């Protein structure tokens, strides 16, 4: 049996073989004992795995695990958060306005003496983000509908900045 035939046998098992090739594989299974044995082995393994995924016990308490997630969510920039609660926003809008004004002042200072914006992985970057990491990039998108994603590989000393209006169209490996 050739490697190609073996892979077609597997594709047949997985239901991924084009219909026009199915008949050929069925004939091979009828005529070739080795092919039939291999097919049985692949089928047994597939079945054993599909029905018996190892069970993994979760090692932490619910509260501890959640508290770490909640902390990270609370640290997110407001614009990175999924959506702000309307009532909360209404209550706090005067404070937000003041905070916004302060942020704009900070931005002006930062652009005069560029500080940095740190990102451990791909993340949305807003021009108002402030960081104490002086080597990190400060990124400004010139178009209103466009966002910038940054990725820093500190070990390589490489910074990637991608400007895009649509995160999904960017040739970047994200989900």
């Amino acid at each position, binding site marked *: 049996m050739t490697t190609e035939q073996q892979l077609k046998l597997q594709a047949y098992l997985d239901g991924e073989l084009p219909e026009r090739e199915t008949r050929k594989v069925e004939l091979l299974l009828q005529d070739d004992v080795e092919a039939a044995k291999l097919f049985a082995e692949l089928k047994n393994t597939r079945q*054993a795995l599909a029905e018996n995924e190892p*069970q993994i016990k979760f090692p932490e308490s619910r509260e501890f695990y959640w508290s770490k997630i909640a902390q990270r969510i609370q640290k*997110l920039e407001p614009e990175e958060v999924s*959506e702000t609660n309307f009532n909360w926003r209404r209550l706090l809008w005067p404070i937000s306005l003041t905070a916004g004004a302060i942020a704009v002042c900070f931005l002006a200072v930062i652009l005069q003496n560029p500080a940095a914006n740190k990102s451990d992985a791909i993340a949305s970057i807003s021009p108002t983000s402030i960081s104490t990491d002086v080597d990190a990039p400060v990124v400004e998108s010139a178009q209103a509908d466009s966002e910038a994603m940054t990725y820093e590989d500190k070990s390589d000393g490489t910074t990637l900045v991608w400007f895009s209006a649509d995160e999904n169209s960017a040739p970047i490996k994200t*989900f």
Partner: protein
Amino acid sequence: MSGKDFPNATDETLVRAARRGDMGAFEELVARHRDKIFARAVSMMRNEDDAIDLSQEAWVKGWQRLKQFQFESSFATWMTRIVINLCLDQLRRQKRVRVESIEMLDEESGGVEKQMPVVTVNPTERLERNELRARIDLALAQLTDAHRTVLVLHEFERMEYKEISKAMDCSIGTVMSRLFYARRKMAALLVELKKEKL
């Protein structure tokens, strides 16, 4: 929706509440699907600490991207895809899923699996479920990251070849040969483990 309603609410209701900024609703979603997301991270990383970190990162990303969730799949499936991608990124960063060794190149070009004798008996027959799961876990641990990942995505996540090729950023042919090798190796390992037990 108040906190006491969360346990009875559907995932969809909770997602909509979380989109409005309701952290309590999101906490309920985490509690419901935490085990599955963590288990997927463990199966890919084979390391509990990495799995905890990556699963938490997945939940944070999930929160950030709730608006993008279109209810086309279940919330659990959507979250699982997020954690899978984070694990793949981490494996890539650690260079654990690249073709590097000559041995692996040989496997992927169809050299080694040809030499493996076909397993004619079913090594999983007459085994109790827990025993079988434990053996599968041991066998999975012996595969390379690239082979185990393909197996996990195909057999446990039921992803198609095309989806795996996109997620792993490799050709469909590579997915097929990795899957073929991984299955054959698993069969051989399960037989070995059976012999050891006897």
